[in-house]
């Protein structure tokens, strides 16, 4: 288990306490508490319908949780995300991607990255009034924004497609562009909802490397929902396992692999039977 979860010193970057979310008769998330440390990759796994995406939606302001507190500890003090409007959550430093890609399809690849830097630009341009006058501070900010965008285009290998409409990109490129766009919003915590979905093994590998470099080079924390256990086990420091909205296990990849409750959740109650080899591989027990 990683140090950040045990050390009592600095508060964790993200602290979720007693989160509950109910839809009619369905308790989608049930008294969930967990933490995500700075400069760490935390993965949330669980069977379909376990409430993983609901947790994301509560953290990023899509849903108002019925009960619970979601605290982001920033340099400028704690932010209680469950009370903030969506765009203020992004400004506080939490940005997310979606399971189904949501790029601005009719805008160019470059513009997708610039739009994510809107805050910084608008502040520099005094909400575009000075921008209209071509004020030099706005020019400088715009130039910096383009430079940052280009750095990301370089990094995800889309420099030569900067002028394409984002909707025309190949699927894998769209996935990477979505991550780059999120990074251009300069988050402290990046929430990725199944980033490896639909990628081939080679692309998954490249994705793992990209995510690790975000953690190691950009110094941000990642919160990950993922079904691809290869990716999860390889890159995350900390794994939280959900089933029916409850946390059934939590710990390092090694601990999770051998956790009986996890295996039961994935395979049903009679998990005493020997697992078929391909399933063993899938839960990372090869």
């Amino acid at each position: 288990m990683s140090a950040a979860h045990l050390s009592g010193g600095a508060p964790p970057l993200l602290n979720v306490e007693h989160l509950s979310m109910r839809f009619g008769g369905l308790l989608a998330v049930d008294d969930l508490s967990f933490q995500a440390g700075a400069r760490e990759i935390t993965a949330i796994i669980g069977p379909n319908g376990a409430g993983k995406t609901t947790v994301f939606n509560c953290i990023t302001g899509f849903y108002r949780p019925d009960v619970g507190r979601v605290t982001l500890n920033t340099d400028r003090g704690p932010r209680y995300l469950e009370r903030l409007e969506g765009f203020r959550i992004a400004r506080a430093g939490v940005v997310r991607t979606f399971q189904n890609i949501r790029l601005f399809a009719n805008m160019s690849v470059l513009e997708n990255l610039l739009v994510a830097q809107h805050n910084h630009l608008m502040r520099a341009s005094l909400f575009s009034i000075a921008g209209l006058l071509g004020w030099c501070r706005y020019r400088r900010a715009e130039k910096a924004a383009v430079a940052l965008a280009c750095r990301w285009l370089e990094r995800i290998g889309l420099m030569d497609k900067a002028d394409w409409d984002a909707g025309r990109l190949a699927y894998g490129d769209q996935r990477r562009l979505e991550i780059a766009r999120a990074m251009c919003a300069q988050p402290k915590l990046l929430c990725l909802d199944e980033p490896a979905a639909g990628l081939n093994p080679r692309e998954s590998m490249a994705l793992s490397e990209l995510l690790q470099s975000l953690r190691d080079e950009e110094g941000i924390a990642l919160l990950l929902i993922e079904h691809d256990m290869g990716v999860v086990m390889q890159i995350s420091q900390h794994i939280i396992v959900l089933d029916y909205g409850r946390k059934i296990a939590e710990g390092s990849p090694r601990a999770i692999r051998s956790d009986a409750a996890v295996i039961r959740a994935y395979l049903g109650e009679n998990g005493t039977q020997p697992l078929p080899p391909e399933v063993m591989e899938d839960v990372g027990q090869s």
Partner: protein
Amino acid sequence: MGYFLQQLINGVTLGMIYGLVAIGYTMVYGILGMINFAHGEIYMIGAFISILGFILVGLAGITAVPLALIIVLTATMIFTAAYGWSVERVAYRPLRQAPRLAPLISAIGMSIFLQNYVQLSQGAQVKTLPPFIEGGVVLLRDADFAVRISYVQLLIWLLTLVLMAGFAWIIGRTALGRAQRACAEDRVMASLVGINVDRTISLTFVLGAALAAVAGTMVTLYYGVVDFFIGFLAGIKAFTAAVLGGIGSLPGAMLGGLILGLVEAFWSAYFTTEYKDVAAFTILVLVLIFRPTGLLGRPEVEKV
């Protein structure tokens, strides 16, 4: 030939005014998916404010025409933009999550309210402005007909072109424009990358109202008469222009405005003036039946 040219000039002038108002409709539609039926009234308020402005400027003893124009235009744009902002704040923002019919009804209510507000506060009589900019240039002299473009017409052309260029720049090149296009595509995603969607929508109304204010000022200068009811017809016609060009498309709004202006001018010139509104609205019906997306309004077209 001369007569034709003259109608062309008149038609383009009229079309540019329609185009300026149509942009307000098309921008709001692009971003909110609703028709702001109070936009015609915003234009009418712009015309009233400009008349007040010209009177005040006259009382202040400013006689230099360019200076007076700049002052009146700026003041009109600012005050009309404030009206546009308030309309959004009061009548549409509280209904952001409501079904689509609710803001539409609210828009019609706002339109009626603004008409009556101006009627009560300014009176029902027609307000007139003595010709402020006189004269013109004779372009061509036929045997019995002189083709003439007045200075007011030249001013309208020039101002519209400048505003359109500036507008294309804002939408295409600035952070605000990008935010507007992002909101038009996916409002939720826009807020998730940190865009203040409510503020972006407010600024869209402010920009649309400022353009309508310019159109209102130009009409005041062009015709010299204003009353509380001009917003209704002008609004519906600008809406027709926006639909004709393809609602949601900015170049479409301008193109639709020009076509509508030309149709009206030529219809009045060669057929009957009484039926020019019939001609304009026949276009609306035909477009809605045969090409509901308008001339430039394909689904993937850039919209705001």
